[in-house]
């Protein structure tokens, strides 16, 4: 393999990026904007005060509770709509969006409180039910078993974002690099430049390695920037009319940022070669985008981003083990959440499989270029 020819191809990719400001923005600005938006939404979202109605169907027994309950929810910042007194009125008001929860005291043998919610936004319903359940438990002297929760990894104040961010970093880098390489190599095939390249003494492997190297330079910068933004946080104080704000997600990092970088970079190089491979089967840029639901979305669903791989049903578990993102995201969680190092077998496996998949993708990508001239 000629280093001169390989570097010439890498340099051409660098020249492309240097000229194409929109692509640069997609690589560097888009992931930061997405992460910032997500961090903002997850950390600062506020549920508007719950509007509820208390319906007493338990007669005199219920009457003794209604007043106490109304005081408790008012103290918790909720508002009670006293005009709603029957279940039917409550259902209508819930349907119209005028109420968030109806608390029905039912006339059963045992004291029963039924909570009725709209059922449109389940996460919203769950948050309000949890809030009400806590208020009820706090206000009424209900005998209960104390349950405390602690975790092996992370800190007691770690939030959803701290566990979700590693997966998101892996996904974003893989997705953006895949789309860029796919479209870029398609242009190479369709614009006649690949034909011209193959009319020179360049080896197919030099094209693939040159491409991987060229993209990897930018993927490296992208990964470094994304990790920097994810792991660090700077507080900007209030200036004049502008309120203070935070730059960076400040996600809790238990391990080595360098190892996290290595895992993400391997994932990015796999995405480069997957992009080259997939471009064989496309004729237009739109057709490259059509591979997103085929190649990217299943990985998003099966790679352990939203739910654990172990919890996947039936055949989906072995399928998830064939996906590079499964190992990338597991590796990132191992490093960032568990603080694993190179001595940890699980991380060793992730790195090994990712490296193997990168090698396989390089071979597949090279094979597709060979097919071009068959």
């Amino acid at each position, binding site marked *: 393999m000629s280093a001169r020819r390989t570097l010439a191809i890498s340099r*051409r990719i660098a020249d492309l990026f240097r000229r194409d400001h929109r692509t640069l923005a997609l690589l560097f600005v888009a992931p930061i904007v997405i992460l910032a938006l997500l961090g903002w939404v997850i950390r600062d979202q506020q549920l508007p005060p719950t509007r509820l109605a208390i319906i007493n169907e338990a007669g005199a027994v219920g009457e003794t509770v209604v007043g106490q309950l109304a005081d408790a929810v008012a103290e918790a910042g909720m508002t009670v709509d006293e005009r709603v007194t029957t279940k039917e009125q409550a259902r209508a008001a819930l349907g119209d969006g005028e109420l968030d929860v109806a608390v029905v005291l039912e006339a059963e043998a045992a004291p029963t409180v039924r909570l009725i919610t709209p059922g449109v936004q389940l996460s919203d319903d769950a948050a309000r039910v949890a809030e009400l359940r806590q208020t009820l438990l706090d206000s009424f002297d209900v005998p209960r078993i104390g349950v405390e929760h602690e975790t092996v990894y992370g800190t007691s104040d770690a939030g959803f974002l701290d566990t979700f961010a590693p997966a998101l970093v892996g996904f974003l880098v893989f997705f953006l690099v895949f789309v860029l390489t796919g479209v870029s190599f398609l242009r190479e095939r369709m614009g006649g430049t690949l034909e011209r390249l193959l009319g020179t003494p360049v080896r197919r492997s030099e094209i693939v390695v040159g491409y991987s190297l060229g993209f990897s330079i930018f993927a490296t910068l992208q990964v470094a920037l994304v990790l920097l933004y994810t792991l660090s946080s700077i507080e900007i104080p209030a200036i004049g009319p502008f309120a203070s704000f935070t730059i960076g997600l400040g996600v809790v990092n238990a391990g080595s940022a360098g190892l996290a970088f290595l895992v993400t970079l391997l994932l990015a190089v796999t995405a480069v070669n997957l992009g080259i491979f997939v471009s064989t089967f496309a004729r237009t840029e739109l057709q490259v985008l059509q591979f997103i639901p085929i190649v990217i979305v299943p990985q998003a669903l099966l790679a352990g981003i939203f739910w654990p791989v172990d919890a996947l049903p039936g055949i989906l578990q072995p399928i998830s083990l064939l996906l590079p993102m499964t190992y990338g995201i597991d590796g990132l969680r191992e490093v960032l959440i568990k603080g694993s190092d190179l001595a940890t077998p699980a991380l060793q496996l992730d790195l090994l499989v990712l490296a193997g998949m990168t090698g396989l993708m390089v071979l597949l990508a090279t094979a597709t270029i060979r097919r071009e001239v068959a």
Partner: protein
Amino acid sequence: MIDNAVEAHGLTKRFGSLTAVDGIDVELPAGRIYGLLGPNGSGKTTLIRLLLGLARPTAGEAHVLGVRMPSRENLARIGYMPQSEGLYTDLSAWENLRFFAALSGNSQRAVMNEVLDLVELSQRRNTPTHELSGGMRRRLSLACALVHRPTVLFLDEPTVGVDPALRVQFWEYFRKLAAGGATLLISSHVMDEADRCDELLLMLHGRVLARGDGIAIRAQAGTADMEEAFLRLGGGEPEE
């Protein structure tokens, strides 16, 4: 010393039921300009791709400079100007030239400047290729094929979109290259370029209908006009 720069024996390429190149046998001695003439779809581009080793023949074999194709190493001695521009539109003229020079293993700055002068693009060397006119891009494409000083040149429709004055200069340069020992196979469907070639190969339906210089071919067809000669020999309509 190799007598024939290019040889094809029984060279055939089929795409399903279509036979694009049909058992061509040719031997092209070195140091001459060969015109590959024929209408669109006659098999000129496929023949060039087979000779370069960019397409695998269904049957037969091709040799360039005595080496059986495909041969990656041999491509360092071959220049190829494809029918499509095959340029990176996001790069400047100079960056395109430098890139293809590096891949072909000859990045001499003096040669790069010389070919850029030849195609009259020295003043536009830093212009992004997408800002060049169609004719300029065609000229740059030719420069990229010449930049490593190849011994054999396959030029697929090199003069399309090039203005008449520059076309004359191109042919003068081709003549200079041939005088220096280079062999050029130039495809065209423009019959008036025929007389600039040392020898012509008239192609139709993947076969070489006739071979010889312009005078001989016209004499064979019994007409003074090359287009008429083509029609008489092939019984088809040459396309413009």
